[in-house]
């Protein structure tokens, strides 16, 4: 520790601290414009100049100067104030004083400091800049006339996002923050640059002229897209969520968000929201009262109580824990059916079956914090960045700041592979399980295995065929195995979701085997992190929202509906028509079912088939808890009143439950208490204890090696291997109702390799027809170097030309591609 004095205050800080850090620790505020706690010190703006007794004669920048023992620092003297005023005068010389129409007003560091330092005149005169404003993208407005050259946007884009959209271009007075060839911004649109911009040079276009910053009510909540569980602050006015407000102190991610989180909130106040119940009369869905709609549902469910096997319920993992709890009570106990499932059935099995078999728990043994503590990461699919972008930022930071080594095993290349030292092994499509089996075999062969329960069984199950099926050389496999096994702390990252039917229980077990076999379980910064797709995927697994007593899985429920054995089906928020495999089959099944209830925010493709549609609310209109991947339970807070007549799923399910003779749950807080007393690991939790940070639920792991048979699909001559997944800007099918994601990525596409595209004479943007045994679909072609030859990638979120028209739940679908 280093001791120093700042403004007469004694403070002790670590030897790596800067004067700025020390001042912060001492409670002394030093003004900054270019400094950001998440970024490397820059020392560009000179606002943080301070006086150091031992370095008299010049002023010292606090943000870049390391502390030394016995330093005596003064942060406010006449000379310092004069210097800071000069800095502000020089910045204001070029900065347009258009604060009345600037969205940053009120949240502008330059404006606030000008006010604080009373800079009401300027000794200098000069012309303002006359740069063209970049309106070429729908999300981020770049007004470089307002830019003060702090470089934060370029630094965050490089250091954390690793995209590198920005750079200083030109030199001297002509220098400005620009992009490649000074063209329009064309990036991931995560908006990190907007969040850190100290002035109004970078603005969120969807928020432009919507509200003054100080008029916004700011409500802390949790993002309702992917399973990462990023905390966000909603900017609310007049019962509308108008923006997300950046708070650098929020969550493990320090306020970092991706496109969906930052720009995808518009679904909350969308014009397309359902605001009244709908009931099918004479074949048409017509508006109805809640009483009428709920009576229909109650009657049908009451009738189903005598034949519970004919009733079934599907839910999305987007509901809160409390809602899922009541959902479980209603269907599993009050109605008495075990035909209850979520996430297409297969998309949670990595947790509910795989982790259960390998670790005895339905959760990952590792948590998000382990990523940066690891020495070696083994990421399954480069898609880990696309499915969970903020986890991607954690990986970026781990690799670039902590020297974490990164190995990717994937069926295609991705952005993570461009990180320094990152290695990507592109294996045959669908060979993930085979690859992990081969890695286990290699670990054993190299004598790097530790003893663990089930070792003999595992040894007996491994075969040399696995290594061959991967398409990788024996040397590559041996090198990956050796690197993983010999690293003190090594972590496997495995994203799961409805777009990844191959990421099932088997793959989770195979990955778990490698972690267990190399002794990586039970250590910090090591193990296996299974990343659920939805905001509450982990909660749905914890609360047991899947068949546990021989009931039907989601896929079997669809089959049952088609065959007529399922007569009553309640769907809460799930959109099987678009997100379940084999669209034609799902549509037929939903048409065949006697009574279909859909509770959703929107009249989705699935809701359009319902007999009763119940309008429910978004995460912004309700309170409760979500459990994110890595088992962090977090508070969701109500920001606005429900739109129209919409009610929360909690209220709907609770009303139904009591109408059918079950308990009536009045307050979600009471239900959380019940969850705490009945769900393993949640014991002792209260919503008050969750505070702003949330609580990571502890787990007791009993690791066991299990034999997993790899079923790698054999390549088919003349056919392409279609792999589905998530697009960077989307999550599930809900992000389609967020304007932000839809601006950037409005349609599905089929991604082809440059070689294949050339052979097929297909150019970017051409329409290609993909035909499988299940059907055919026409999509826009995207051509690039990401996918290898013979592979086609398509995201699954879209209702138009949905890729599930041609998939049937297999990890890889073989298709022909034509024009």
């Amino acid at each position, binding site marked *: 520790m280093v001791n120093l004095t700042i403004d007469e205050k004694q403070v002790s800080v670590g030897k790596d601290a800067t004067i700025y850090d020390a001042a912060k620790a001492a409670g002394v505020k030093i003004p900054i414009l270019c400094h950001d706690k998440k970024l490397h010190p820059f020392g560009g703006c000179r606002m943080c100049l301070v006086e150091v007794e031992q370095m008299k004669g010049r002023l010292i920048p606090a943000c870049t100067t390391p502390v030394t023992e016995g330093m005596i620092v003064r942060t406010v003297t006449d000379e310092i104030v004069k210097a800071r005023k000069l800095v502000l005068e020089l910045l204001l010389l070029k900065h347009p004083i258009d604060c009345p129409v600037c969205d940053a007003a009120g949240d502008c560091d330059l404006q606030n400091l000008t006010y604080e330092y009373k800079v009401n005149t300027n000794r200098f005169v000069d012309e303002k800049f006359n740069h063209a404003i970049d309106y070429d993208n729908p999300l981020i407005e770049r007004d470089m006339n307002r830019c003060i050259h702090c470089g934060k946007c370029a630094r965050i884009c*490089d250091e954390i996002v690793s995209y*590198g959209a920005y750079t200083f271009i*030109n*030199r001297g007075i002509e220098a400005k923050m620009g*992009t*490649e*060839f000074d063209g329009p911004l064309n990036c991931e649109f995560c908006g990190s640059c907007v969040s850190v911009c100290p002035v109004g040079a970078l603005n969120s276009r969807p928020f432009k002229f919507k509200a003054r910053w100080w008029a916004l009510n700011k409500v802390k909540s949790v993002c309702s897209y992917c399973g990462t569980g990023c905390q966000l602050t909603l900017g609310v006015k007049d019962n509308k969520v108008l923006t997300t407000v950046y708070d650098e102190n929020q969550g493990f991610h320090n306020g970092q968000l991706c496109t969906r989180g930052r720009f995808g909130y518009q679904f909350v106040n969308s014009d397309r929201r359902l605001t009244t119940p709908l009931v099918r009369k004479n074949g048409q869905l017509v508006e109805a009262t809640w009483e009428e709609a709920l009576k229909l549902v109650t009657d049908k469910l009451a009738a189903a109580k005598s034949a519970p096997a004919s009733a079934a319920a599907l839910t999305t993992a987007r509901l809160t824990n409390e809602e899922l709890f009541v959902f479980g009570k209603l269907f599993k106990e009050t109605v008495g059916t075990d035909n209850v499932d979520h996430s297409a059935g297969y998309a949670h099995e990595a947790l509910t079956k795989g982790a259960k078999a390998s670790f005895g728990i339905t959760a990952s043994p590792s948590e998000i914090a382990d990523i940066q503590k690891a020495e070696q990461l083994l990421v399954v699919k480069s898609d880990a960045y696309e499915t969970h972008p903020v986890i991607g930022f954690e990986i970026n930071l781990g690799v670039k700041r902590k020297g974490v080594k990164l190995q990717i095993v994937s069926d295609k290349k991705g952005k993570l592979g461009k990180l320094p030292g990152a290695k990507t092994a592109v294996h045959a499509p669908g060979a993930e399980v085979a690859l992990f089996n081969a890695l286990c075999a290699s670990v054993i062969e190299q004598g790097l295995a530790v003893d663990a329960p089930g070792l003999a069984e595992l040894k007996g199950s491994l075969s040399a065929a696995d290594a061959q099926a991967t398409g990788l050389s024996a040397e590559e496999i041996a090198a990956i195995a050796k690197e993983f096994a010999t690293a003190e702390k090594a972590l496997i990252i495995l994203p799961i979701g409805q777009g990844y039917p191959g990421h099932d229980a088997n793959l989770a077990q195979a990955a778990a085997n490698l972690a267990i076999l190399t002794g990586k379980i039970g250590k910090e910064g090591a193990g296996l992190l299974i990343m659920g797709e939805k905001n509450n995927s982990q909660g749905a697994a914890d609360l047991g929202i899947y068949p546990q007593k021989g009931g039907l899985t989601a896929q079997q429920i669809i089959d049952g509906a088609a065959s007529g054995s399922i007569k009553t089906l309640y769907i809460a928020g799930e959109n099987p028509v678009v997100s379940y495999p084999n669209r034609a089959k799902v549509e037929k099944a939903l048409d065949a079912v006697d009574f279909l209830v859909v509770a959703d925010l929107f009249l989705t493709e699935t809701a359009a088939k319902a007999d009763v549609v119940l309008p429910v609310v978004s995460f912004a209109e309700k309170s409760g808890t979500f459990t994110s991947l890595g088992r962090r339970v977090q508070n969701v807070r109500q920001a606005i009143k429900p739109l129209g007549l919409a009610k929360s799923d909690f209220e709907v399910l609770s009303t139904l439950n009591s109408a059918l003779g079950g308990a009536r749950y009045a307050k979600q807080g009471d239900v959380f208490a019940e969850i705490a007393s009945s769900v393993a690991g949640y014991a002792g939790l209260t919503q008050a204890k969750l505070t702003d940070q949330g609580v990571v639920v502890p787990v007791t792991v009993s690791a066991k090696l299990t034999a997993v048979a790899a079923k790698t699909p054999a390549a088919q001559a003349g056919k392409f291997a279609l792999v589905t997944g998530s697009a960077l800007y989307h999550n599930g099918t809900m992000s389609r109702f967020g304007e932000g994601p839809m601006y950037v990525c409005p349609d599905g596409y089929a991604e082809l390799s440059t070689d294949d595209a050339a052979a097929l004479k297909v150019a970017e943007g051409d329409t290609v027809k993909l035909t499988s045994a299940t059907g055919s679909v026409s999509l826009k072609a995207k051509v690039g170097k990401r996918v290898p030859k013979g592979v086609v990638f398509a995201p699954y979120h879209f209702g138009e030309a949905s890729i599930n028209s041609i998939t049937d739940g297999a990890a890889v679908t073989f298709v022909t591609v034509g024009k």
Partner: protein
Amino acid sequence: MSNAPAEAVKAEETPEEVIDLTEANNIIDKYLTLPGNLMPVLQGIQEWYGYVPRPTIDLVAERLNVYPSQIYGVLTFYAQFHLKPRGRYIIRVCVGTACHVQGAERIVDTFFGRLGIGHAETTTDLRYTFEKVACLGACGMAPLAMVNDDTFGKMTVQKVDEIVERYNQAPMKPEQK
């Protein structure tokens, strides 16, 4: 203004270029393992192609794993890099004080007349780019002109004709090193 930054090419103005990337790849190969290799690679490319064509920027970005934006930042920071095609032969005439008093303006005007281009312009056949410069640092030889690395001191109007005649015969392709 002699310290004006290199001209910025707007994306939409970039002409459709068909660039043979073989030599760019060779240059990258040569420096691939050298730390801090971006500058020598860009200098090599500029030397070979006469400027830094856009396709080479994408190539360098991909092969050196540097953001294209950063490369563009470097290229626009240093006056030595050019993003538009330049002549094979760069004629620079000093108009600094010493050369000025020795009649540099007449030399400049003569070049303008012979080449049909003005300051900082390039002939359509890409043979010549003409530049007036502030000082070449050899005032004893005023008035001074340079063509690429060759220096011509004590310039006269007659010598302008000789120089243009000589470089009209010179090859358009740089010599392979």
